[in-house]
């Protein structure tokens, strides 16, 4: 397993060095959604390409499982050796996946516009490095974070609006520890928008671990759903702050078999409350959708507008 983890590290670091994106993929998928929006400025909407990246991680996991990464032993070693090759050959989002990601980001931009928030976008924005940090490759993350910070400063950015918990967490909590003089203001789009309409009447919330237990946002997206008129189904042992289980996403690339089982257990718990699940993280949405295809798993920005 150790060999596999180090192969993963090499895969991520190589790709970030080459293209500021963690997996081998066409970078144009990251900015398609932003057509018509102004470029740059002091305040930018920073997606870190997470919504387009999430289905690619799911693709990579499918490949990892086929080549035996989760089973350990000789097959895992072979998978590790071939990681760079199969990544380059197979990682492509489907039109449906890419279109869905674009739609979510366009709705976030539209909600910000309606709330009177002025912002620009950076069409060549780099990935935040969250995967390196979460997998435990701290030194690699530190040097990459300094590079990303330099990128923002060179473009005169003073404030970033984030759209997902992983990017928000590393920018707000991890970057200041590793980047000297880090002074970007970090806000979440959820703190700025004022939605009034909803596409569903009733749903259960699947919390992001980072928003609920690290970033103190447990009530924020619940308030947004309430203001849009969505009836929330709650059960303290399923959706309570301490008991809202993880989707398994953070270990998808390390042990896809365990991550898949975690997602199945979580989707079974949620399905007992509602057949519509609202997520606030692109990785949770993809992971739960794969585990329970009959469940309607939607992103917050697909539900409120």
């Amino acid at each position, binding site marked *: 397993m*150790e060999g596999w*983890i180090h192969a993963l590290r090499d895969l991520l670091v190589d790709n970030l060095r080459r293209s500021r994106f963690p997996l081998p993929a066409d970078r144009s998928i990251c900015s398609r959604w932003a057509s018509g929006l102004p470029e740059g400025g002091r305040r930018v909407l920073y997606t870190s390409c997470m919504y387009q990246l999430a289905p690619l991680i799911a693709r990579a996991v499918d490949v990892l499982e086929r080549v035996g990464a989760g089973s350990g032993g000789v097959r895992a070693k072979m998978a590790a050796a071939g990681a760079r090759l199969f990544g380059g050959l197979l990682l492509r989002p489907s039109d449906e996946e890419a279109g869905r990601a674009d739609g979510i980001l366009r709705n976030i931009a539209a909600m910000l516009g309606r709330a009177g928030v002025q912002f620009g976008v950076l069409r060549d924005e780099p990935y935040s490095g969250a995967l390196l940090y979460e997998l435990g*490759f701290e030194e690699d993350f530190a040097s990459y974070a300094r590079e990303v910070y330099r990128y923002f400063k060179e473009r005169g950015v003073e404030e970033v609006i984030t759209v997902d918990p992983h990017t928000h967490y590393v920018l707000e909590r991890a970057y200041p520890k590793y980047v000297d003089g880090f002074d970007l203001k970090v806000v979440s789009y959820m703190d700025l928008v004022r939605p009034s309409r909803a596409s569903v009447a009733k749903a259960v919330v699947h919390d992001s671990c980072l928003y609920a*237990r690290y970033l103190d946002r447990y009530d924020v997206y619940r308030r947004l759903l309430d203001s849009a008129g969505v009836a929330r189904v709650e059960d303290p042992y399923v959706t309570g702050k*301490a008991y809202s289980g993880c989707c398994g996403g953070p270990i998808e690339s390390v*042990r896809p078999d365990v991550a898949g089982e975690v997602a199945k257990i979580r989707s079974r718990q949620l399905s007992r409350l509602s057949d519509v699940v609202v997520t606030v993280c692109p990785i949770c949405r993809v992971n739960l959708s794969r585990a329970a295809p009959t469940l309607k798993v939607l992103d917050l920005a697909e539900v409120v507008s």
Partner: protein
Amino acid sequence: MIAEIDRCARCGFCEAVCPTYNAVRMRHMGPRGRLQMARIAFDGGAPSRYVVESLATCLRCRACELVCPASIRIVDVIVEARRRLYARA
């Protein structure tokens, strides 16, 4: 960090909420097992495959910390042990 590990009374409340423990029911894949695996990593000996598997599969979801009666900073211990383990390799 060792002092944090020493405060574990092995009550097992953390296992009830740990997603990976509930998925596989193996003690090294739950918080109290991970604390003992972290101790091995801090001791600096050659890690077994169980130590690596244990520390690498923590989701960092923090569910365990919210139910720990001793308020042990479980995730901080695991993350630091994992960092040392990877840095050694």
